């Protein structure tokens, strides 16, 4: 505690001297208080960065955590080097750690004080990070303005309670259907019924991970059911309605096909490599695996429709985004914020798109990006919703999915699932 106080004091005195030093040169500059709001022009941003450079002594240590895949690590390393090159007067020591994105919040919350200063995370983890006070609110921006350069849909999910926390990074964290166009026609992938029938005929496999709330939501959403989050982070869910039951029954029918498989990611990839899977619901993180496996036949499309009482319903989905966040316990907050901005700017997003195939959130970068996967995602985006759901959704939804896979659909099952999903937040604690 004491140490912290001293360092806080030190920083503020350092900042103060820097401030005075600059003040001599530019007399017209307004004194603190409300001067740094986003409405400020470019001039003050440059000043702020100049202030920061002037007040920086010694090496700046920044730790960055991002996905452990090799492509990611490589491109992030390049971008960090470019960042260092941009400020030649400052001595940086940027270390990049590999953390699976799905575990990012768990790893950070283990001990926020020891966690990375800058990290890349998917939007569904924002709430937990904010709740634990581990992520820094973006109170000022210096090199670009989020609301000017990023597509509108990507900004909102990075905010919470009206405050912006995440720098939009990629906009392709949703899911769609990959398929092998040498085996399946466009009609085949239009509906689950046609798809499973054709796959049964071919003796191949198709499917999506049913025992996973993230994907399962798409089915119920497509059937017109709703799942929303309340202010206290509990959920509202009407999946036990008539429509929900019909959706669950139709899902059970589809999954009972011999060709339908509900694979987790590793089983999916193993069977994909074995040439067994001809169509599967997945996301851009697997783009290389599918492209390799299908070769010339590689294709992607929006999710298929499904049949409820003779009516074709379009399967919905969650759209997912990734953000760059700054740890609220970061030692070099100024530099961490600048690095986060740099990593999420247009140039970086283009580089990341080229390296990993993930779609940019930046408007200009998005214009440059085009691939079957991103086109499919864009097509699906009309049926996709933002992921806003309380933490009590996941486990019950997982169980529900598993029950449906086993064919145990009943009103009772849905009632129980909804009770679990809707349970008050404090009760489970």
């Amino acid at each position, binding site marked *: *505690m004491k140490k*912290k*106080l001293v360092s*806080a004091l030190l*920083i503020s005195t*350092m*900042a103060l001297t*820097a*401030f005075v030093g600059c003040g001599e040169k530019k007399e017209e500059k307004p004194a603190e208080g409300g*001067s*740094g*709001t986003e409405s400020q022009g470019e001039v*003050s941003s440059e000043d*702020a*960065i100049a*202030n*920061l450079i002037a*007040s920086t002594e010694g090496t700046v240590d920044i730790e960055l955590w991002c996905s452990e895949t090799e492509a990611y690590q490589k491109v992030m390393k390049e971008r960090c080097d470019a960042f260092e090159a941009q400020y030649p007067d400052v001595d940086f020591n940027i270390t990049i750690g590999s953390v699976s994105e799905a575990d990012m919040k*768990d790893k950070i*919350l283990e001990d*926020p004080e020891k966690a990375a200063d800058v990290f890349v995370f998917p939007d569904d983890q924002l709430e*937990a990070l904010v*709740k*634990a*006070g*581990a992520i820094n*609110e973006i*109170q*000022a921006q*210096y090199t670009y303005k989020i609301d000017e350069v990023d597509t509108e849909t990507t900004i909102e999910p990075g905010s919470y309670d009206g405050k912006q926390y995440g720098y939009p990074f990629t906009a392709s964290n949703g899911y769609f259907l990959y398929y092998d166009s040498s085996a399946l026609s466009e009609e085949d992938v239009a509906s689950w019924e046609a798809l499973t029938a054709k796959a049964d005929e071919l003796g191949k496999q198709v499917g999506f991970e049913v*025992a996973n709330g993230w994907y399962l939501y798409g089915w119920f959403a497509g059937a017109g059911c709703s799942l929303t989050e309340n202010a206290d982070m509990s959920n509202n869910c009407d999946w036990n309605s008539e429509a929900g039951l019909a959706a669950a029954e139709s899902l059970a029918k589809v999954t*009972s096909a011999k060709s339908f*498989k509900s*694979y*987790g990611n590793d*089983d999916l990839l193993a069977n994909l490599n074995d040439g067994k899977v001809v169509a599967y619901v997945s996301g851009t993180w697997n783009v290389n695996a599918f492209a390799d496996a299908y070769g010339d036949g590689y294709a992607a499309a929006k999710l298929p429709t499904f049949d409820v009482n003779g009516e074709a319903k379009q399967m919905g989905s969650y759209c997912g985004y990734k953000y760059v966040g700054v740890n*609220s*316990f970061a030692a070099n*907050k*100024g530099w961490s*914020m*600048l690095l986060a901005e740099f990593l999420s700017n247009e140039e970086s997003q283009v580089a990341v798109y080229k390296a990993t195939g993930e779609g940019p959130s930046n408007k200009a970068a998005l214009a440059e990006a085009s691939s079957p996967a991103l086109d499919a995602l864009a097509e699906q985006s009309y049926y996709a919703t933002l992921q806003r759901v309380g*933490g009590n959704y996941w*486990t*019950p939804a*997982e*169980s529900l999915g*598993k*029950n449906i896979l*086993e*064919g*145990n659909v009943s009103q009772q099952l849905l009632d*129980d699932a909804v*009770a*679990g999903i809707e*349970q*008050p937040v404090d*009760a*489970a*604690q």
Partner: protein
Amino acid sequence: MKNFFRKRAVSLKECGSAVKNGDIWVKLSLLIMGMGYFGRKQILKGILMILLEVGVIASLVSVFLPYMSKLSTLGTVQREMIFDPLTMSETVNDYDNSLLILLYGIIGILIIIAFIALYIGNIKAVYRLQEMKKNGGHINSFKEDLMSFKNDKFHITLLTIPAIGVIIINVIPILFMICIAFTNYDETHQPPAYLFTWVGIKNFVRLFTNSQTLTFGYTFVRVLAWTLIWAVLATATTFIGGILLAQFINHEHTMAKGLWRTLFVITIGIPQFVTLLLVGKMFGDYGIVNTICENVGILDFFKHIGLLKQSAGYIPFLSQPGWAHVTIILVNIWVGVPYQMLVATGILMNIPSDQIESAKIDGATKFQTFWKITMPYVLFITGPSLIQSVIQNINNFNVIYLLTHTYKTTNMALANSNANEVDLLITWLFRLTNEYSNFKMASVIGIITFLISAALSLLTFSRMIGGDKEEVYR
């Protein structure tokens, strides 16, 4: 317990009379701990004592007392920071960290207790010196004092460092976690950004209540039942399996005994996090075992005899209750039998052969000798260690976690409490802390697990250290 307090009272009384009858040096050491030794010309010892006293008091005042004073609330000032966009710098207020307050508080209390004990001991020791001087006894020089650590006080030499290790790595964390059970430390109260505070026994009440949304009561009973069944079954199966295997290998007609033993022992040699993860993958829903079962028709056979639904696409070895329970026990046999075989081999080698010989002469079959002589003998010898291994299995984290960390439950009530059918108390609490940051309930479960283990241990307690058994062996 009573005995403990009586002893403390006696000790205090001795101390009181020491002060009353002590001379000026003894009275001075009430204030300055080393003084009594100066009076008896033990200068070095005196200086050491003074340094110790100063050190303890200084560290208490400068480090621990500020935290200890907040122990009753666990802190009131929440972290706030003010960011200055112009200088890109940030000021943080002087906030409280509930976690550090609790931790420093516990350590501070331990230091105070230790210091009081030392203080009383010091006065008594100084008074003893005074008496010795009066009676003309020999007073040790510093060198002689040091030498005594090689003889009369050798136990202090031996035990001090291991004891400090145990206190740091064991005692303090345990005390800390016990305290957590009485706070609201969970997902929404995580230091350093937020504070947590005392809530009394609310968490214990919660563990035993049950409603549609609050299912801890139901879950606890289910998990506890499986934990106990698992512990007994796991111990029994590996134990019997181990003896049978050892008996089989040790049989007079078995050739190359060492080779066979080595083959089985190899499985112990590979770390569990490798073998169990591997076995878990093999028995996965789409794992290699399922592929083979499907190809040779076992899957269809199970469907035929009604073990599986017609629609099943795989055998749910580790993904459905019942199936998973059996698989876990079987895999545990695979893991545990080689080890038990080693134990049993050692015991069987020492079995009194005359009994077996005479049984043979009486015309007993091999089977009879095994059940009537070998088994009772082995049971007699390993009885207490069996209960120990039941306790170990209650806390057997590795086997369950590594095999089933991807298990998904279909039971809504269990799912609502973040548990599943194959969870032991220990894996449940691990999940609660690691994935759900629910430290308070995890601590409650931990305390209950401890109580169960302790109750079981009472059965063996007396036999292990009670009585004078240890002398009898010699």
